[in-house]
């Protein structure tokens, strides 16, 4: 959390010696608050003050990394409760759990499916993030073998689930290069687990279902023992309890700068629910409301795809509307007789129009112009979607070779452009389409007879 100049000033020597280049300590503090100068410019800050200032300047929710490869999970460092206030920065990791009591080939199969899962959306490849291995058997050797089976099949971040430090150590020996998440330290085992987290430089999840007081006590002890990268499991299961608990944790971190609970949260939406669909709904809640890592009970693409899409949606920066690539898109099996529509590259506009053209079941060409990611009306008002720009897109896209019919359908909202566009595109017929995307199917069915 950013400190104010006055808060910083309190920690300075207040001698106004000017060696930092500023006339007073207060002036220096103000500049520091505005991030215009480094604290090291003052040679006289005490070690204690330095630490206090650095700690206070750290993010309210610690950034924690699980995994060592390029496919690592980075969570935390969030600064708002609602995405419109700024943005959500780090997408929650979505992982799938296997149990060490399952047959080795079953474990390997799940690991392969999860590790290899990839679904295309908006030109992006969405993937699952990792695998959690649970020491259900209680047997350290079995646990280590299961971890090995996973590690040999999939190169994804791992979460090791056991409360037995012996089993954990056996598993860590197998997975040690991969910085797996250790789940979990409890009031019973925290000293040993903290020791393991240090030895293997792995992040550590802390579990307590006895309320936030207990949880905070535990994290304080563990942080005191020298483990900085922690995650929280406050033990809340079910939709209502987890919503309330996770909201409280996010608020404590952001509004109170409460360090002992300023860590990302791990959740298990499949615990205590009656069906796959209920697990999916609980996971959907956790994506929206404050999870850092979500552990699903099983691999199912019909659950994974919606959750990955929700995550993609909610973690989109609201200040930067996603843009689609300005180019010519073929919707369905478009050919030289298919209609040609033009719209802007605001993603929502593009998807609405493309979706409705698809709904019409009439294959078509969709020419998307570069309107800096604005919708049709906004772009038109801002001069980013005018006759000149449309004509330019027509010429540069090569659509003239694709549609000899030379008819172009413009959005109903910019009907006024048709005259100018006729001048810019001699020989073309300018047709005025619908204002709303939803009316496109009816329009195409009745108006298109090329």
């Amino acid at each position, binding site marked *: 959390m950013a400190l104010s100049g006055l808060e910083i000033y309190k920690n300075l020597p207040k001698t106004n010696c000017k060696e930092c280049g500023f006339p007073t300590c207060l002036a220096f503090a103000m500049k520091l608050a505005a991030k215009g100068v480094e604290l090291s410019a003052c040679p006289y800050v005490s070690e204690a003050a330095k630490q206090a200032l650095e700690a206070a300047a750290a993010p309210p929710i610690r950034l924690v990394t699980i995994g060592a490869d390029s496919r690592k999970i980075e969570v935390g460092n969030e600064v708002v409760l609602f995405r419109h206030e700024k943005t959500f920065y780090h997408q929650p990791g979505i992982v799938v759990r296997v149990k060490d009591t399952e047959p080795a080939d079953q474990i390997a199969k799940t690991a392969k499916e999860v590790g290899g899962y990839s679904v295309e959306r908006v030109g992006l490849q969405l993937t699952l993030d990792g695998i959690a291995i649970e020491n259900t058997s209680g047997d350290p050797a079995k646990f280590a073998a299961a971890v090995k089976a996973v590690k040999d099949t999939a190169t994804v971040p791992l979460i090791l689930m056991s409360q037995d430090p012996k089993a954990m150590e056996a598993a860590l020996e197998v997975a040690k290069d991969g910085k797996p998440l250790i789940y979990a330290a409890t009031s019973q085992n925290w000293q040993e687990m903290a020791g393991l987290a240090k030895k293997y430089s792995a992040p550590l999840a802390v579990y307590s279902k006895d309320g936030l007081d207990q949880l905070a006590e535990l994290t304080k002890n563990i942080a005191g023992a020298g483990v900085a990268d922690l995650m929280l499991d406050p033990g809340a299961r079910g939709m209502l309890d987890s919503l309330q608990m996770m909201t409280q944790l996010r608020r404590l971190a952001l509004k109170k700068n409460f360090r002992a609970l300023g860590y990302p949260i791990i959740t298990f939406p499949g615990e205590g629910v009656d069906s796959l669909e209920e697990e999916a709904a609980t996971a959907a809640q956790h994506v929206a409301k404050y999870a850092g890592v979500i552990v699903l009970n099983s691999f199912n693409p019909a659950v994974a795809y*919606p959750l990955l899409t929700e995550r993609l949606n909610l973690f989109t920066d609201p200040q930067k509307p996603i843009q689609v690539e300005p180019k010519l898109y073929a919707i369905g099996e478009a050919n030289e007789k298919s209609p040609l529509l033009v719209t802007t590259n605001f993603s929502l506009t593009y998807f609405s129009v493309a979706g409705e053209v698809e709904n019409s079941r009439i294959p078509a060409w969709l020419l998307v112009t570069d309107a800096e990611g604005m919708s049709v009306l906004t772009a038109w008002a801002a001069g980013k979607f005018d006759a000149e720009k449309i004509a330019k897109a027509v010429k540069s896209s090569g659509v003239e070779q694709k549609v000899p019919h030379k008819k172009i359908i413009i959005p109903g909202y910019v009907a006024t452009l048709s005259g100018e566009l006729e001048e810019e595109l001699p020989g073309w017929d300018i047709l005025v389409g619908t204002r709303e995307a939803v009316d496109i199917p009816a329009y195409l069915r009745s108006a298109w007879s090329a």
Partner: protein
Amino acid sequence: MAVEIPVEKWAGKVREVTIGATASEGGTRSKTVTVGGESTLPFLQFEGQLPHRPVIAVEIHDAEPTDWSPTLLGALGDVVKDPAAWAKKAEEWGADLIFMRLVSTNPDGENRKPEAAAEVVKSVLKAVGLPLIVYGGAGIEHNPDVLVKVAQATEGERLVLGPAEDKNYRTIVAGCLAHGHIVSAFTPMDLNLAKQLNILVSDVGLSPDRIIVDPNTGALGYGLEYCVSVIERLRLSALQGDSMTQMPIISLAGEESWRTKESKVSEGVPEAWGDFAELGLIWETTTATTLLHSGADIVTLRHPKSVALIKSVIDKLGKGA
């Protein structure tokens, strides 16, 4: 280590709106449904009141849908041919309300006359005791004619009629005023436009407890994030005390999510999408769950299994309320 839970004290709360009227209130409904009244963000019962849980409006059409997903048509069966039978089924599934879209009035389609559409609405009212939300399907220009006829034919039933938009709200609101109904004020995903329309509707003389806000719905993968943010902003503004944002919110989760490619395409489904029937269902419930968490008071749904699931979600989140 003592942890003090931060609790928000909000200055405002969401307005209560009662939909439907029983015989003693001038209608024929067997019960009414009240939405709104929250004095906190969705389901945060540790700091505020949730006097009425969010409700489910099951969507039906006044004419047989021809382009719906096979998953959906399979689950609904023959009732889609008869709006009254369909509404009855919805009541059995546990609907709190019926959301009826008058698609047959679309001039580019069947172009059914307003009087005929109003007759279908009456047949549904006869078949079920649940309160009704009736949406036009004739477009911004023709919806007022249709909705005014429906308003007349169902005098005193306290239906929700919509969508009333900035270009056509006057006639629709007048119909609601004259015949004792509620209006659903529709704006395209913008807090200020939503607020502005509420002001305009109130200026015509409709009391604020007869306005529902429809801030436009984006399905999962199709603008859900815009929808989440506009609802969250509306709700925060309501709790902060801005009276023209304090109306309960409706989200058309069913209609929007079943229009998406993910729910509709039944052939050539990519392997990464998994089971097609399951995907359509989870697309709808994920959309609905996310919108409920943003602040929706009414969600529309289409699939009977979604109704059951979202009902249990609301029961769990609203426990104690």
